[in-house]
């Protein structure tokens, strides 16, 4: 019945489902991009390598590093906003209460 309804009403419902699905997908992709710091860390390592290889000087390193730190902070903020785990900040042993 459900399937049949879907098929029968396809011209009307199709686009709505389609849009919803697309939005979900876009949402997921955007969320992944906003919260993934792997490419930023890779950029940082690449930058460090360029300094080591003498391809850039100290001043340029510091300038670019500042940009990368901004991006890292942004990702951290997004992760916090989505309730995901973040690196850095105070930690403690999980499950240990403040007794004793």
């Amino acid at each position, binding site marked *: 019945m459900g399937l049949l309804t879907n098929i029968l009403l396809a011209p009307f419902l199709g686009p709505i489902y389609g849009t919803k699905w697309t939005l979900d997908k876009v949402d997921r992709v955007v969320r992944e991009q906003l919260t993934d710091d792997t490419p930023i860390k*890779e950029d*940082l*390592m*690449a930058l*460090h*390598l360029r300094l*080591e*290889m003498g391809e850039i000087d*100290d*001043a340029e*390193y*510091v*300038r670019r*590093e*500042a940009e990368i*730190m901004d991006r*890292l*902070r942004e990702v*951290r903020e997004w992760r916090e906003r989505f309730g995901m*785990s*973040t*690196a*850095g*900040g*105070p*930690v*403690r*042993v*999980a*499950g*240990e209460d*403040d007794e004793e």
Partner: protein
Amino acid sequence: MSELEKQEAPSPLTASANSADGKYVYCIIRLDRSRDFGEIGIGGGARVYTINYNDLAAVVSDTPIVIYDPTRENVLAHEFVNETVMREFTLIPMSFGTVFRSEKDVSVLLKSTYQAFTDVLEKMQDKIEFGLKILWDRDRVVASIERDNDEIRRLKDEITRNAASSTYFARMQLGRLVEAAMEEAGNRYVLHVHDQLKDVSVASRSNKVIGDRMILNAAFLVDRKDEKSFDEKVKEISLKFEELLTFKYTGPWPPYNFVNIKLKLEKAT
């Protein structure tokens, strides 16, 4: 001068939490009394000392409750402390930026992970890590491939001779052959290096390469007694390939890549 000043101070999580009660943890060592390592800590030379539990000690410095950005300055400070400690102790390095809220929380860490820390310290006794990155000079490697590979040389000669009439297909074919030969050469170099260093190291780990010139990004775990032999071997290989490959050799480091204790940590609120 102004460049350094521009670096932002670590961002306080909340205004009220910004006291210096936090403990930045650098590493875990075996030591049954307290010890001062001097004013070499992260955040501008904080005093580095130990928090002890039985025969284990966490090497720490006081810090406000902040998130430390992995800037070179901060990372170097973290590494410098570990290097200093490493001169005398076998250590388990902590991840960069690990901050506990209080001395008590650090004691809880030592207590609850006591057995795992002890086991790993035993295993890592007198072991050090070296980093080895190998980058190649693409143009030179291509040139050497064109020199040594008959099929590629023939095809290339043909294309150059009949520059006007040589087909798109022939050029594509050449490109593909060179690409394949490059990959094979890269693998061969990497295998050769691993093979040469096998006898002078305990273990190795390959990390993801950075950029398009790097063919190896590896860490080697080496017994302190083999440090010299390892060193000599790396120099020998790098000399052998100096025309084509650049070796970036660093260390000794604490065994960052070989200690894998999953600490059950959670955000302290």
